[in-house]
């Protein structure tokens, strides 16, 4: 129990460190940006309408005050951390005065939904099939799958998403290629809405699964084919233990341990994939929101989203880490 407590403390510390470094990095970078939100706002405002130069000056003053852009950098930084602790990222500059947190909360469920389903699906399927492929090395079907996985795994998310978009949106236009649900479909727990959401998530989810699946498949296959040659497996086989039992209890279970670590390690990369996929399919999640925010020069929104992403991803990693000892009781702390 004591070792678990130490393990726990270490993981928590790591979590805090990731969040601290990550958010500071974001803050520093985003405050070095040349984009001035006040100028951006004024430009957008005046690019069509009839506004005299004198009026702009007055407007500039009002906006600086409104956006809370005054104060020394240190003051801005201190107030930033004091606000971030309570989850207050201030008002969005490009959707003033709506709070950033409100925009993020609106987008987050889409991303989490897409990400969790796609990641879990890819991980389970990939490991299952990969495990089988490693154990039954002569099965032709599984070998063929190995080849496909080899071809798909190294593809970047963008290329896969783009190819799917071309195929199902243009060459054989059967699936929706933008948005999170159909136009005019009311919100609520109705068949229309749920089926529309599922349909719209099909292509984005598929691209995430396609890329993810191959990696887990290949990893698991390699692990299992190594474990199969371990002495204890050989003894079990010689001892006449049922092969299915060997596969599930002797081989898969041990092979899953590093795959869980792998999942924790790659969550950041998967999140990156989700951002890109959302952008390709115009999915209304946090990725599209981020790209929008960067384009609009919206400091507070960019900071909010990046911070929330960092916290969310490291939180997910923490959860996996905490569950890890349950799967692998050998976890010992040096």
């Amino acid at each position: 129990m004591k070792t678990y407590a130490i393990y726990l403390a270490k993981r928590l510390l790591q979590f805090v460190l990731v969040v601290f470094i990550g958010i500071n990095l974001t803050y520093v970078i985003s405050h070095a940006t040349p984009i001035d939100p006040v100028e951006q706002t004024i430009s957008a405002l005046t690019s069509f309408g009839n506004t005299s130069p004198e009026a702009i000056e007055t407007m500039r003053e009002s906006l600086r005050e409104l956006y809370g852009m005054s104060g020394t950098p240190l003051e801005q930084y201190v107030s930033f951390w004091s606000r971030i602790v309570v989850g207050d990222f201030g008002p969005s500059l490009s959707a003033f005065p709506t709070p950033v947190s409100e925009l993020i909360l609106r987008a987050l469920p889409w991303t989490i939904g897409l990400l969790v389903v796609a990641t879990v699906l890819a991980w389970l399927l990939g490991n299952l099939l990969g495990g089988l492929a490693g154990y039954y090395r002569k099965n032709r079907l599984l070998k063929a799958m190995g080849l496909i996985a080899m071809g798909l795994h190294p593809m970047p998310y963008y290329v896969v998403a783009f190819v799917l978009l071309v195929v199902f949106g243009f060459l054989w236009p059967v699936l929706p290629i933008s948005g999170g649900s159909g136009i005019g479909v009311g919100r609520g727990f109705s068949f229309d809405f749920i089926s529309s959401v599922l349909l719209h998530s099909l292509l984005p989810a598929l691209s995430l699964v396609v890329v993810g699946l191959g990696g887990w498949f290949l990893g698991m296959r390699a692990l299992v084919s190594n474990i199969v040659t371990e002495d204890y497996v050989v003894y079990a086989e010689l001892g006449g233990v049922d092969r299915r039992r060997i596969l599930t209890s002797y081989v898969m279970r041990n092979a899953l341990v590093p795959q869980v670590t792998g999942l924790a390690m790659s969550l950041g990369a998967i999140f990156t994939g989700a951002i890109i996929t959302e952008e390709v399919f115009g999915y209304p999640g946090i990725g599209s929101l981020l790209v929008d925010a960067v384009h609009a020069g919206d400091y507070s929104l960019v900071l909010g989203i990046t911070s929330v992403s960092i916290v969310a991803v490291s939180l997910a990693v923490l959860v996996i880490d905490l569950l890890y000892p349950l799967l692998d009781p050998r976890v010992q702390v040096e």
Partner: protein
Amino acid sequence: MPVLGTSVLGKPILRKIACAAVALLLGTAAYVPSAAEAQDVISSLPRKETLILENPEGTIKNAGWFNIWAINAGGQYTGLQQLAMDTLWYIDPEKGLEGPIDNSLAAEAPKYNADFTEMTVKLRSGIFWSDGVEFTADDVAYTVETQMKNTGMRWGPILSLNVDSVSAPDPQTVVFKLKRPNSRFHALFTVRFNAIWIMPKHVFEKAPDPMRFDFNKPVSLGAYALHSFDPEGKWFIWQRRDDWQRTTLGRFGEPGPKYAVYVDGGPPDKRVIAQMNHNMDVVHDVAPEGMFTLAKQSKSSRGWFKDFPYAHPDPTLPALLFNLQRADFQSKDVRWALALLIDIKAVSMASYRGAATISAIGIPPTGTHPDDYHIPMQDWLKNFELDTGKQKIKPYDPTVGKQIADMLRPSMKEQIPTDQAAIDKSFGMGWWKPNPQAAQELLQKAGFTKRGSNWYTPEGKPFSIRVMVEGESRPVITRAGTMIAQQWRQFGIDAKTELAQGTMLDRRNSGDFDTLISWSVESYGGHPDLAYFLDSWHSQYVAPAGKPQAPRNYMRWSSPELDGIIEKIRGVGFDDPRSIELGRDYVKLAVREMPTIPLMAYNVFVAMDDTYWTGYPTAEDPYANPVPNWGNSRYMMVRLKPRGE
């Protein structure tokens, strides 16, 4: 898959997982055929009564915000500005339903006193907000007073600069007392693209802070009212009001579409796909290739012009803007040299694939402007002389428009007009003839030197120019910039394009560029007055280097001669013919000084699909501007008829 499930999987749990996976795949496969209509966007509205338009703002981050008077809070072109807002006058860049100027909420033209310090407006009666409250002069007065009190609101600063007081002596009369003479004050309430929209007093006065009030659901003064919207900001549905007669549009008859839907079109190819599948009736803009594809492959699609060049010319003039506060561009000889290195034919091909309306002078070649400026000034342009230091040349080539038409004719065949007037209208008239020899002489005159194949500045540094372009959101402009940079590069100047993307507006205003392709000239199109943009070019507004520049003099040109012209325009009325003369003086000055290199009209590839609706505004029937984010696109609604009627 099934083979696998039976042959190798014995363990129940694994088998279950496998079965589930198979079921999922089969389920998906089974769902796909029924999804053939998946891309047929709207399920809940009768398609035949619905008009679908593109909102070029894309996804609205803050969809539930309809307070258009607060700055940048929510969407504006979601149908809000086009269908729910109204104000005193509208001016159309085209012919208009009954002339370019429409008295909307105002019953007649504005009345100024003799020294332009007071404006009196008579309002229409019998106009109602969508919640049944009558519109009166109090709403107008409230709009002005509220924004004057809150300078952070969209039109607050400009109103407080101009207005001393506003009063409503009776429900149909508003009197503006101005702080200083302004013969063009009414322009603030005249919709070109937008204008100061009138606020519903009875709604806003209940809100504690008008800047933090979301105005959801919006009370409409237009013929449509909000039906529903996507909380993620991808679509907004507007429904025709039952009492549409009680709006200003009611004078022109019943609006055709019962529902108007403004949607996020996504990237250009998605928009083209959507229109080919008849899921988007009006596309705001696509790349030229997208328009050509639609014209070729979709029988029901058309642009503003039935044939090439298809696009609608906005009264906006993309030009190459120099940053005149940078040392390299101080000399007009350098600016002229760079202009003479541009082959406008290649730029037209590269940007619009020829579908551009070029202009050598700083006025958009659209609407009535050619009659007032371009055509009468041809002779002056032909005789204009430029001294390169070694020789005198006449740089103007009046046949460039014709050359472009001739160049396109072999591939576009009869789509290209042969009539000279039609060519002038579609492709523009003349431009500067490329003249590398003169350019070389001009550069040398300015102290630049050529060593090897590269040019050096008088300080001995390599002559390097960055051409800033916006990127994906304005593909045509981006291509024009790329072509110009290449032409300069081939002459030995280190020129490169620079992609500004979202920082474009910001950098343009802060003067953080060498040159950029943008517009500092915007005009009415249907009216010769130039003060709309020219007044802001007065040197009193030019910011020192490093400080943000107010629109629209982004090149920061300051010229005492120009100031003189502007001051004279301020002293003459809006419809005074003398202002045209002064406008021509501005053109001549700008040609001599070359503060910007004017290129072409901003042509917008609006694509309209008549599968469900007919009667769109077109070049043959130019009753309104079809570009769907312009406020005056609302006039389209009363002319649209369902197909088959």
